[in-house]
């Protein structure tokens, strides 16, 4: 590149722009890199599933050859799936006996299902009746799981948020509650499983209780921290404006902490899903975990994957809905009110000189 006529886009510049240290990506790059985040694992999955010899460590035997030939590997039968080594050894035995060789095709183990199989399962799992009458359909399981999460998290937030705000506002309550909460926090929620079943029976209640235990104690500490992070100078300003103690809490601490608390809740809902899997397997198994457990026993791994993917999709969807909702709930964080958009348009329309005055 000559020095006198610098080209507008230097070679390597797009890459340099993408890999800037703490430089935000431009919107288009953001979108496509985000797509890539899902595309890359998917492509890897497809490669392993569909391109032969990348993995395919087993052989599905279509014809066992001459089964009368004795040998260490004579158990290989038509329809079996055996390790590739075993298949090779069997054929060695057969060829030594000058018998008909076994035939088969290389396959992946049953626990690695190809994308199309999982995709089909995502559909059929919803449309196929459960194998045992009385078992839940997938959509029933999904609904059941959502119900447990909802109630567990609701109870947790109903007590955890006010208590956390109280601790974050008054050092007295922080000292009174936080040490004990901190102590209980280290106990893994699942260890309370047996207790909860004894206390609440076999139905949904103990499961809701496990979600509650799993999220409540963390929530108190996280909420109190977020509440404490409200700028103290805002409190001072409010005091010099004549706010009483109660007004200080209600008109400054709470609105000041709210966007942060909302973000905390989004993260904690993720935790609730983690505890769900344990919670649903105590007492009477229920929900998606029971579905997965059941399908795994039938070795329907396509359905297992389908259910796992569905958990991911539901979690992601809920989070995204909450993220979009946040823009409307906290317009001051993004400046996205209708009125503000109108005002901004007006300001753009104003002559520049009028703005310079400000």
């Amino acid at each position: 590149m000559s020095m006198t006529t610098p080209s507008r886009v230097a070679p390597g510049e797009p890459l340099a722009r993408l890999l800037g240290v703490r430089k935000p990506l431009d919107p288009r790059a953001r979108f496509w890199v985000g797509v890539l985040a899902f595309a890359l694992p998917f492509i890897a999955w497809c490669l392993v599933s569909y391109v032969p010899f990348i993995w395919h460590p087993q052989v599905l035997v279509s014809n066992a050859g001459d089964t009368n030939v004795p040998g260490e590997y004579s158990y290989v039968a038509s329809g079996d799936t055996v390790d590739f080594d075993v298949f090779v050894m069997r054929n060695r035995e057969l060829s030594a006996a000058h018998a008909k060789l076994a035939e088969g095709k290389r396959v992946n183990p049953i626990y690695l299902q190809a994308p199309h199989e999982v995709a089909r399962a995502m559909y059929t799992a919803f449309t196929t009746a459960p194998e045992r009458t009385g078992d839940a359909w997938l959509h029933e399981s999904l609904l059941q799981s959502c119900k447990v999460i909802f109630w567990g998290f609701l109870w947790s937030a109903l007590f955890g948020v006010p208590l956390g705000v109280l601790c974050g506002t008054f050092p007295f309550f922080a000292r009174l509650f936080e040490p004990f909460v901190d102590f209980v926090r280290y106990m893994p929620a699942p260890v309370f499983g047996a207790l909860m079943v004894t206390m609440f029976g076999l139905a949904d209640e103990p499961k809701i209780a496990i979600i509650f235990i799993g999220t409540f104690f963390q929530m108190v500490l996280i909420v109190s921290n977020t509440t404490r992070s409200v700028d103290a100078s805002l409190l001072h300003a409010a005091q010099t404006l004549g706010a009483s103690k109660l007004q200080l809490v209600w008109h400054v601490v709470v609105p000041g902490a709210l966007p942060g608390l909302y973000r905390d809740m989004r993260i904690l809902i993720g935790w609730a899903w983690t505890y769900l899997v344990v919670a649903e397997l105590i007492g009477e198994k229920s929900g998606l975990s029971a579905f997965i457990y059941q399908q795994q026993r039938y070795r329907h791994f396509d359905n297992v994957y389908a259910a796992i993917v569905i958990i991911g999709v539901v979690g992601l969807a809920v989070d995204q809905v909450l993220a979009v909702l946040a823009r409307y709930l906290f317009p001051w964080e993004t400046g996205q009110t209708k009125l503000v958009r109108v005002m901004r348009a007006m300001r753009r329309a104003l002559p520049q000189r009028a703005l310079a005055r400000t």
Partner: protein
Amino acid sequence: MFDDSIQLPSYLDHPPEVAEYFQEIEKRRVVLGIEHLGRVFEGGETPVVALSDVNFQVRQREFISVIGPSGCGKSTLIRIVAGLEEPSSGVVAVDGIPVTGPGADRGMVFQNYTLFPWLTVRKNVLFGPRMKGIRADKADKAADEWLKLVGLSDFAELYPAQLSGGMKQRVAIARALANDPRILLMDEPFGALDAQTRCSMQAHLLRIWSAADVTVLFITHDLEEAIYLSDRIVVLGARPGRILEIIDVPVPRPRSQEQFLSAHFLATKKRLEELIHGRNPGADADGELLHD
């Protein structure tokens, strides 16, 4: 900085209109009284005396600045007046009533704006009246007037994050004034602004001060800002923070930026430099290097 060959008048030498102005101020009632104020920070190896025996009075509609080097306790002083900190000794009284904590009678403007980010500009201004339980329609009208006075009527529905630093500080001033305080406390309010914005904000503040019935206690470390704005300047010295002198500014009002080069202005500035940087007229040429 000052060429001693230029003959400046004494800063004590008041023009007649200024002398008259100060006589008039003397007749007004005392809004803020500070008596034998002291503040000691315990806890370190040796207790730090931030303020020691500070005495002065601020009268109705007076504009008084407190100036001093960093560490002289000027911020501690204004925070004690605001009621955000407690004094170790002495009394702060507003209209003769001792201060026991923060209150609406002492509005404060902070250096870092401290606007409530979740409230629009108008709602920020309405915060004080709302806390007092003043009826919305009545408060609304007053808020609009204050916003008009600070020149932000068109921005009433924006959020603080959408404003520039200067605009934010104007909202903060309107918010404090809308609460109808006895005295407006300003803690280095323009310290975070760039030089140009700071200049226009000073002019703005003078305009607001002349339009509204408001007494101002203003903290700054900028000498010119103090002279330009104030009736009187309280000069604090550091370690321990104490009053070195209270200067009656001899620059006539109305003030303008052209006066920065007037004889009275420069004489006052010279005196302030002497007090703060410990330079006496005719001191050695290295004096410049000694101050912080």
